[in-house]
Structure formats: structure tokens, C-alpha cells
């Protein structure tokens, strides 16, 4: 094998080159913007300017540096995202279970689950606020509503993918319905469930950023719009954009990691996902 071949066969290399390429394109664009625009940092700042902010010691607001501010508000947002995500996951799983138990329920509920995803959050927010009476609970509930769908559909797909033979087997043991759910359906659907989680985890974070803006008491969403309003350094905005993208990807990978931890044996589940709605 030639040296060239050896290097190009490294799996991380294409990724590295992609990242370098994107950085290059960004920097070229940023350079163009910086000479043509009066406030280039609002349009496309240089990457080093954005990441420079991480180490900046200058107080941006309330005596906090940009990094402190982002981390502070992130802790609020991520906490809500986590709770919303867990709520949504439980909700999605329970809904999938109900829809599996009753075909009638599936046919009745399913189209509306889809519809709920289409109702703009602004419409839901006041109603949920009046139900819960507390803005933070409302935020969590909305984040849950925005994230339960992938979990519900994927888990249901998992339930429905159980082979007929597995039922027959359990039936021949005269097993109860409860036993079949406990021993077959639920364990079988776990990988599908995790597929749902991998999709809904980043969604929970973007949803939680969205619901931050329901009221101005902190959180990444509030800081993002504040920064956009130039009430503070615009770099806070850019930092949040990068931070949320990073956390979103990380959350998805984290679910994959969790799956491996929960399912230590390598399950060769070829999930056919041609048609399950995500």
C-alpha cells in the first residue's frame, strides 16, 4: 500500500477535509462580507472572532462574559429540554403502547398526532399556560409536545415489526397479553425506540430554545433574540448558534451511546425504515 493510499484510507480524513473546506468557504465569505458590509459581524463574522469570544474576559451583560452568559442560559434551556425530552419520551412511548393495544385508538389518534405537530406553538402556548398556570411548566409541556412524535411513531413501528411467529410462540405457551407485552413487544421495540430518541433529542433542544422566547427570563432563546436586538454583543448570538448545533448533534450521538450501554449485546436489528413516518 502506498503512503498516499494509507493516508486516504483513514476514516477520519474525509471528515477533516470537509471541516477544513467548510471553514475555508466560511472565511472567504466572511472576508468578502467584511469589506462590503458596514456591520459584517451581523451578517457573517470570521470564525476566529466568534470563537475568540469564548476566551474573551470582557463582560457582555450583568457582569458576565459571553461564555458565562451562554453557559448560564444554556443550563436553563438544557434543563428544560431534558425534562421536556423525558416527558415527551414517556408520552410518546405511552401513546405508542395505547395505539398498539387498540387498533381503534391508533386509527383515531394517529392523524391527530400529526396535526398537533402542525399547530404553531404560538397558538398552543397561551392555552397550555392557562392549563398549567406556570410559564416554566408550560415550556416543558410544549417542548414535550414538540418532541414526542418521533418516539411515538418509531416505537409503534417497532411494535408492529414484531414477527407473527413471535406472537404464535407466546400464544402456544398460553401466555397472557401482559406477558407478551413485557417479554416480547417492549424489549423488541427498544432499538426502534432509540431511533426515535436519536431524532427527538436534538428536536427537544431546538424546541426548548424556541419556548425560551415565550417569556424573557433567560435561556438560550431569550439571549439569542436579545443579542439579535443588539442589546448586547452580537457574538453571543453566533456563539449560541454554534453551541446549539453542537449540543444538538451531541445529544443525538449521546442517545446512540446510551443505546449501546442499554443493549450491551450487539443486536443485529435491521430496522426497515422505508416507510415509518419520522
Amino acid at each position: 500500500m502506498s503512503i498516499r493510499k494509507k493516508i486516504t484510507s483513514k476514516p477520519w480524513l474525509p471528515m477533516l477535509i470537509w471541516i477544513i473546506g467548510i471553514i475555508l468557504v466560511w472565511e472567504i465569505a466572511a472576508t468578502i462580507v467584511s469589506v462590503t458590509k458596514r456591520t459584517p459581524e451581523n451578517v457573517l463574522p470570521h470564525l476566529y472572532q466568534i470563537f475568540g469570544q469564548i476566551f474573551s474576559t470582557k463582560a457582555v451583560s450583568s457582569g458576565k462574559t459571553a461564555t458565562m452568559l451562554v453557559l448560564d442560559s444554556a443550563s436553563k434551556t438544557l434543563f428544560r429540554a431534558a425534562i421536556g425530552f423525558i416527558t415527551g419520551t414517556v408520552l410518546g412511548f405511552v401513546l405508542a403502547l395505547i395505539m398498539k393495544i387498540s387498533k381503534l385508538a391508533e386509527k383515531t389518534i394517529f392523524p391527530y398526532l400529526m396535526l398537533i405537530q402542525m399547530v404553531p406553538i404560538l397558538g398552543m402556548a397561551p392555552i397550555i399556560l392557562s392549563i398549567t398556570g406556570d410559564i416554566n411548566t408550560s415550556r416543558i409541556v410544549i417542548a414535550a409536545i414538540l418532541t414526542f412524535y418521533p418516539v411515538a411513531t418509531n416505537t409503534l413501528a417497532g411494535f408492529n415489526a414484531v414477527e407473527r411467529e413471535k406472537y404464535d410462540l407466546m400464544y402456544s405457551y398460553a401466555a397472557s397479553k401482559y406477558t407478551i407485552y413485557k417479554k416480547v413487544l417492549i424489549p423488541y421495540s427498544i432499538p426502534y425506540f432509540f431511533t426515535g430518541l436519536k431524532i427527538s433529542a436534538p428536536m427537544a433542544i431546538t424546541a426548548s430554545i424556541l419556548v425560551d422566547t415565550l417569556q424573557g427570563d433567560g435561556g438560550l432563546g431569550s439571549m439569542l433574540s436579545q443579542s439579535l436586538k443588539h442589546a448586547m454583543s452580537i457574538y453571543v448570538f453566533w456563539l449560541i448558534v454554534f453551541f446549539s448545533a453542537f449540543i444538538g448533534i451531541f445529544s443525538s450521538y449521546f442517545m446512540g451511546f446510551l443505546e449501546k450501554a442499554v443493549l450491551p449485546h450487539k443486536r443485529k436489528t435491521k430496522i426497515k425504515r422505508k416507510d415509518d413516518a419520522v
Partner: protein
Amino acid sequence: MSRKLKRKKSLWYRIHQNEKVQSAETVLLPLLFGFLFMIMWQTQKLHTLLHTDTFTLPLPSRILTIIADNSDKIMLNVNATVIVTLAGLVAGSLIGYGIAVLAALFPKWGSCGLKIIAAFNAIPIVALAPVMTNWTKDVSNHADIRSMVAKIMVVTIVCIANMSINAYRGLTELKPFSEDLMCSYAASKRVTLIKLRLPNSVPYIFTALKVAVPSSVISALVSEYFAEYIVGVGRQIRENIVLAQYSSAWAYIVVACLIGIIMYAVLMIAQSFMLKKRA
């Protein structure tokens, strides 16, 4: 075919077995549910259930009255929203598909590229929309045009990742040996693409679109909040909510849902038409 765990052969069960009854159920049950829901809503049972009032959740009759009273204005806003949604959906899907094709032709680089594109999904729309408004400042002197472009760009970006990831799977998750088959014919990459990969990816395109339709509607609505030119269903929802005009806001919310439902229905019809002959 789904199988019952219980094997009671009651009349009820036998009726259920009938295929026509089954497909009728698929349509009728949700409709029935929707109808009951509307009755509960109109009679304010729903309000008691949700601990809310007719101010926060106006009655259907009032909402419909407002829709009827303002049909011209609503159509104007619907037009704007639908144009943005469709244009963004089409552009995003095409670009996404194009990326997927490139990735399928150069898998080593492509699969990495897709991972990076997937990262776009993790950027919140609330961050994307204002940036796009800034980026499109030079597009036109007319605020309505540059706003539209900005909004379309938001929807486009939201659709790209979804389509490219799904289409890539459609282009690469081939039946075992089908690539070998084309190879044995000494078929070129191009011919393999046209004869094998593209047709194979059709069901996956629909999977992508099924996700993309609702999310393109939502992102069109959100991008309207941030657009310079004031038009669109989303903008109207926000204006009315902020002004505490819940009845009017709900009129627009209903309209927004209708846009989504109609687009989804069209998609499902197209799908059943296109995939009629497939397994």
C-alpha cells in the same frame, strides 16, 4: 396484514376482518373523533376539561365567522405563505436530492458531507430566520421580494438535510446483489444511477417529504415573524396573539393547519399513485 392477539370470532371481529370496513374505518374514525372534538369544543366541554376559557380558546363558530368575514385578507396571507412553503420545499428537496446523488456517487466523501449537513437540523429556526434576513439584504430593492427570498431560504435549509439523508439511503440501500448485477453488465456509474439508484430512491423521497411537509409549513410560519415585509399567515398569528386577539389568531392557526393538511393529503395521494405497483 395485522393480526389480532385475541381470536374471538364475534360478529364484531368478523366485521373488522372485512377489508372495506377496515379502510372505511381508517377514514371514518378520525373524522368521527374530530366531529366529537368539535362538538366538545363548541359546547365548551373542552374548556372545562382544559381549564381554559373561550377567550384563550375561542369557539369554532366564532373562528369560522372571522375566517368568513376576512376571506380576502386571509387568502392574501395564505398565498404568501403557500408560495414560500412550496418554493422552499421544492428547492430544498431538489438541492437535498442533488447532494444525495453526489454523495452516492462519491460515497467516501459523501457520507461525511451528509453528517455535516445533518448538523443543520440542529440549528433552531429562530436563529436561522434573522440571519437569512440579513443575508438577503442585497437581493432586491423591494422589501417584499427580498423578504420572500429570505423566507424561502429558511424553508429550503430546513428541507435540505431531511431530504438528502433520506434520499442518500434510498440511493445506497439497494437490494443485495443489485449493484453487482449492474456491474456484471459493465454498466457505467451513470447508467447504474439512472436505472437502479434513482428508481430505488422513490419511496425514500416520499418518506422525506412526509417529514418535510409539516416542518416546511412551520418554518415558513416562523420565518414570517422575522421577515421585513409584513405578510403571511404566521405573521398574522403573531400579530394577533401579541395584540391578545385570540379569535383572529385562531382563525389563522386553523388556516395554517389546513395548509399543512392539504399539502399532506396531496402528498399521500401522489405517493399511492407513484408506489402503486411496488411491494
